[in-house]
């Protein structure tokens, strides 16, 4: 349950960034550049004399907003497509799943880069783009779970009772496939954090001066020889957060998916 603690801590840090951060993350002070860690600046300062800890804390907010909202986008669209494909089968199934295969053929970052180029970089676009990338995974899981649920007697019964397809899907199918979807969501959050970081790292994500874990690491690499802490500290925080969400996902899978329990 270490994963749960880390995940809660990360989300808490993101939520209360403005209370927790000891300094203004954007306050430039050229007299205070590249300070080593101290009581006043526990993580030291960056090339503009900004407090690194405050930037990492606010970076958590940005990174988590993007990660969580993109997962919401991806899950919603993916579930709608997957349940539709699984429930109706035949032509709609073919069409939707082929489309998903096409999306899967693109390296996710390449797809992200192409979309980011077209849409332009901003936090909300980033969430949309990363969410878009996640659609196929959710659609696949939703579809295969729907196929199982569809054959259950309560769905057949609801159908004989003359309930509408949409009603059956919302009332009977979706609630019964939530388990695997929650597991998948908890495992896509760390993926989304990494994708956000990678896009920001490539300069296509969150634009400075707003900090995110990705662009903090990117900024730090420029001083990798002179002042490695600037890349190491945000990198470690990012890894711990990703680790936490991964552990949480594993734990949830053990609880919610009896088949994988060993």
């Amino acid at each position: 349950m270490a994963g749960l603690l880390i995940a809660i801590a990360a989300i808490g840090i993101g939520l209360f960034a403005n209370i927790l951060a000891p300094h203004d993350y954007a306050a430039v002070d050229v007299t205070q550049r590249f300070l080593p860690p101290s009581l006043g600046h526990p993580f030291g300062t960056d090339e503009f004399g900004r407090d690194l800890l405050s930037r990492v804390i606010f970076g958590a907010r940005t990174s988590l907003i993007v990660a969580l909202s993109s997962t919401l986008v991806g899950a919603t669209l993916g579930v709608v497509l997957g349940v539709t494909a699984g429930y109706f089968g035949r032509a709609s199934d073919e069409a939707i799943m082929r489309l998903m295969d096409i999306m899967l053929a693109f390296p996710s970052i390449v797809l992200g880069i192409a979309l980011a180029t077209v849409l332009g970089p901003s936090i909300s676009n980033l969430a949309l783009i990363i969410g878009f990338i996640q659609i196929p995974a959710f659609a696949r899981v939703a579809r295969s779970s729907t196929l199982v649920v569809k054959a259950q007697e309560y769905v057949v019964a609801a159908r004989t009772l003359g309930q509408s397809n949409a009603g059956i899907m919302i009332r009977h199918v979706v609630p019964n496939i939530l388990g695997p979807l929650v597991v998948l969501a908890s495992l896509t959050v760390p993926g989304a954090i990494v994708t956000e970081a990678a896009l920001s790292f490539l300069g296509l994500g969150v634009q400075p001066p707003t900090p995110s874990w990705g662009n903090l690491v990117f900024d730090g690499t420029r001083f990798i020889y002179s002042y490695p802490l600037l890349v190491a500290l945000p990198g470690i925080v990012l890894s711990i957060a990703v680790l936490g969400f991964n552990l949480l996902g594993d734990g949830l899978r053990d609880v919610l998916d009896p088949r994988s329990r060993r």
Partner: protein
Amino acid sequence: MGCSVLVFLLIHFAPGDPITSLIGVYPSVDQVAIMRHQLGLDQPLPIQYLLWLGRVLHGDLGTSLLTHTSVASSILQRLPTTLLLTAMSMAWALLIGITLGIASGFRRGGFIDTVSRVLSIIGISVPPFLAGIILILIFSVQLNLFPPGGSLDQYGLLALVLPSLALGIEYAAVVLRFTRASILEVLEQGYIRTARAKGLTPRAVEYRHAFGNALLPVLTVVGLRTGTLLSGALVTENVFSLPGLGTLLTGAIGLRDYPLVLGTTLVMAFMVVAVNLAVDLAYGLIDPRIKL
């Protein structure tokens, strides 16, 4: 095929009018019309798509807006680096991942299993760009063993050691987890019980009967992960300033060189499809139930 439609639509809706970049910012209306006709841009969208597809199939990916050189030749020049990088990381990943996965699956709860589980969860949590930075910090900055970046021409294969490791770590962790899970699953199958009931040694049971069957799902992972691997390659190349498709692509994006961006994207998508095809072929070789 579907990929090409998506790429085409992306080209079409990409900001920036190709006419503007070809004949200047203030063209006359007639010039534009003539130009559009010459480029086939006055045709309906599906016709445009087919014309474009025809050119792509002939290896013509268009010309770079900035350097006015052929996109295909720039890609060909960069392709070997990316291919080598991904092949080396895949080799690392399969070597480390399958070896440790087997060791921990067959000796579940043992020392190797415990260590590999910790390693794999850490490996999965360190994205390639971060792994790259850490490796540079340790092996280039501190120990000065490998170059922190640079091309194949400069350092030969030495230039790829750290990048391929950076890229391979996460992949190895994924392969390890899948191999382990797959072995645990296979060990519960009826034919394993049969093999044990036949009086075979544990070694024969594990390697003759369990190993091949356990490897099949791992193959699927290799196919599914290729996209992720290329994504990672793209980022890793940037971390190590390797002149491959990834740096070509990010450079082209920075300069808004759309034909180059989309040509590279298409080639990468093609690589994913090619690996998946190879995986299907390998399936056919290993599993007699699958007829190709």
